[in-house]
């Protein structure tokens, strides 16, 4: 279902390696079952041809890897960026987190990524391969003789269902066509929770956050979380811990995390994608984005390099903290 093929990307990477434009390629490496794809740095043609892959399960946002992978390399690093990744790319540049000169960025179109859990919900466990025939995903299970045909739209990852933009905001080169910023319904779920009573909201989040095992996957996958030392690892910060000792710490971890990335979060959705406990963490970040949009004017982190986030800015007429609660009533 992706418009651009693995072969096109491989050839592009090979030619850029050959002509010396880049010395390394940040790409996806094939796994055991087609869906378990691992980001990898390739530096030679043979390994590219052997392991490089591009399919409907290449969800990982590569921007964050640029922070570590551009260090200590001689030449340039080629990175393939989906539209949503480009926002993180710009945001990291805004924060001076990697050297732009070290990167050759190719924007690639994305038709949305599939969620293996959704595939399994339809096809059951025991999936040995997932292929695409151009239109449909063909899912082979060890329990079935023939592959099961699945419509990509039925298994689209949650964040892709509410894709905010098919437009690349940063690249050196674009493959395929650029898209547009979309009019997504990404805030609907936030609005739904806002409409609950405080008690319902509390129960909702208790139920969600109580599952947290503090594995830090959300933090470690988050492109906005590139701190040299994370406050949760710093004993002097007052919030350091390795496991959530109780409800309070579960809540606090996520409130602080959301606050730390507020104004810097590009809404890439990695946090929810990687959460082993399926906690919809992106909703906390989206709440901040929605709130800042409504209170301080539309702002998309990473849309441009060097922009000032709403929390590092102000106007004389900003609403008072007590007024954030009543806006809904006023608007209604």
């Amino acid at each position, binding site marked *: 279902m992706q418009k651009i093929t693995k072969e096109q990307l491989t050839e592009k990477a090979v030619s850029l390696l050959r002509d010396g434009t880049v010395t390394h390629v940040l790409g996806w490496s094939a796994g055991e079952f087609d869906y378990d794809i691992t*980001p*990898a740095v390739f530096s030679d043609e043979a390994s590219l041809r052997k392991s490089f892959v591009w399919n409907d399960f290449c969800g*990982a946002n590569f921007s964050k890897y640029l922070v570590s992978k551009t260090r200590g390399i001689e030449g340039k690093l080629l990175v393939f960026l989906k539209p949503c990744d480009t926002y993180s790319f710009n945001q990291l540049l805004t924060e001076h987190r990697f050297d732009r000169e070290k990167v050759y960025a190719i924007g690639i179109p994305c038709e949305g990524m599939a969620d293996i859990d959704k595939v399994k919900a339809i096809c059951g466990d025991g999936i040995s391969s997932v292929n695409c025939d151009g239109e449909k995903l063909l899912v082979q299970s060890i329990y079935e003789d023939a592959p099961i045909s699945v419509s990509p739209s039925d298994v689209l990852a949650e964040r892709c269902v509410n894709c905010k933009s098919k437009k690349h905001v940063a690249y050196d080169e674009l493959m395929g066509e650029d898209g547009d910023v979309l009019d997504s319904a990404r805030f609907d779920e936030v609005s739904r929770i806002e409409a609950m009573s405080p008690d319902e909201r509390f129960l909702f989040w208790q139920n969600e956050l109580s599952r947290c095992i503090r594995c830090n996957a959300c933090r470690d996958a988050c492109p906005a979380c590139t701190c040299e030392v994370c406050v949760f690892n710093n004993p002097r910060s007052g919030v350091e811990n390795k496991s959530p*000792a109780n409800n309070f710490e579960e809540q606090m971890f996520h409130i602080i995390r959301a606050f730390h990335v507020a104004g810097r979060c590009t809404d890439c959705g990695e946090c929810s994608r990687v959460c082993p406990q399926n906690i919809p963490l992106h909703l906390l970040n989206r709440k901040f984005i929605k709130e800042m949009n409504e209170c301080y004017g539309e702002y998309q982190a990473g849309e441009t390099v060097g922009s000032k986030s709403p929390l590092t800015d102000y106007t004389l007429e900003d609403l008072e903290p007590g007024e954030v609660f009543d806006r809904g009533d006023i608007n209604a």
Partner: protein
Amino acid sequence: MRKCSLNSLQSVFGKIASSALLYLPVDSADGRAVFSKWDDGTPLSNALNTVRSPKDFFFPQTEDLMRFKTEGKSIEVIDVREETEDFVVFGVRACDVKSFDILDRVFLAEPRDSYYASRRDHGVIVSLACTRPSETCFCSTFGIDAASPAGDVSCWKTESEMFWQANTEKGEALIKKIEELTEECSDEAVKEQQEKTARIMKKLPLAGLNTDAFGGGKTEELFDRPEWTELSEACLGCGTCTFVCPTCQCYDIKDFNTGNGVIRYRCWDSCMYSEFTKMAHGNNRLSQKERFRQRFMHKLVYYPENNDGLFSCVGCGRCLSKCPISMNIAKVMKKLGGE
């Protein structure tokens, strides 16, 4: 061997729960199986396994060890341990049952971990045979038969019946308790199910994965293999694999100042974390590659070296499905084992 019809399963559960807390895998609202406390009518999940392993019952993620209280300039140590209630964990899969062998060797060896031991003493493990393994399963690699789970009691579930087999004294006692609700039976149906499962196991994508390249004594051979760089390249350093793993047993002991005293507690730690075993001089494993290598060397080399060849992986596949970047022990074994 005894059996009961699935229709009467809830009464059996009720009977068990009458004298001990009963936990079993239950489907949560978002479609995952979670070990939950049984209440009247709580249905057993059909899912293959839970996201979190049953390790949590015996080695919880955090537990208070003691408290200190200061009064003026004196200090008092308070034991905060509460008497563990008897409990039964039902529906533990063969792989997870095996994990307790591995944990026992760590926590029950001298010096015995009395916190863990107390829970082991009070807990009864009722296993449940697998019939529909996932592509991520590779328990057979470690000599585990998914169709013949160990535990205090082993269970097999067919279309209409549940079969029960006691393996230990504790198991006998449990079976005795539900004697009235179950009947003596032959093991024919179970045998049939086991054969069927065995055939499926052979078809699993990871069926060929073997441990030939690993085990005690392989440290020098494996430690400096260049493949570690590539394997650990994308590792984010999160603790997902360790925290869903049924055999990871590392913990940290920390003090929390409540303002009214200090709680000394322990909590899971992950060797993937940059602060793992941090000491006054700093960290002893400084790069993610070193930390990554530690985890797999521990499971595949160090642990077997110290434990009669027993690997500390049970092939449950949780890390395969949960790793944010899909790097896992199966890929490591394939890569280092020469695919």
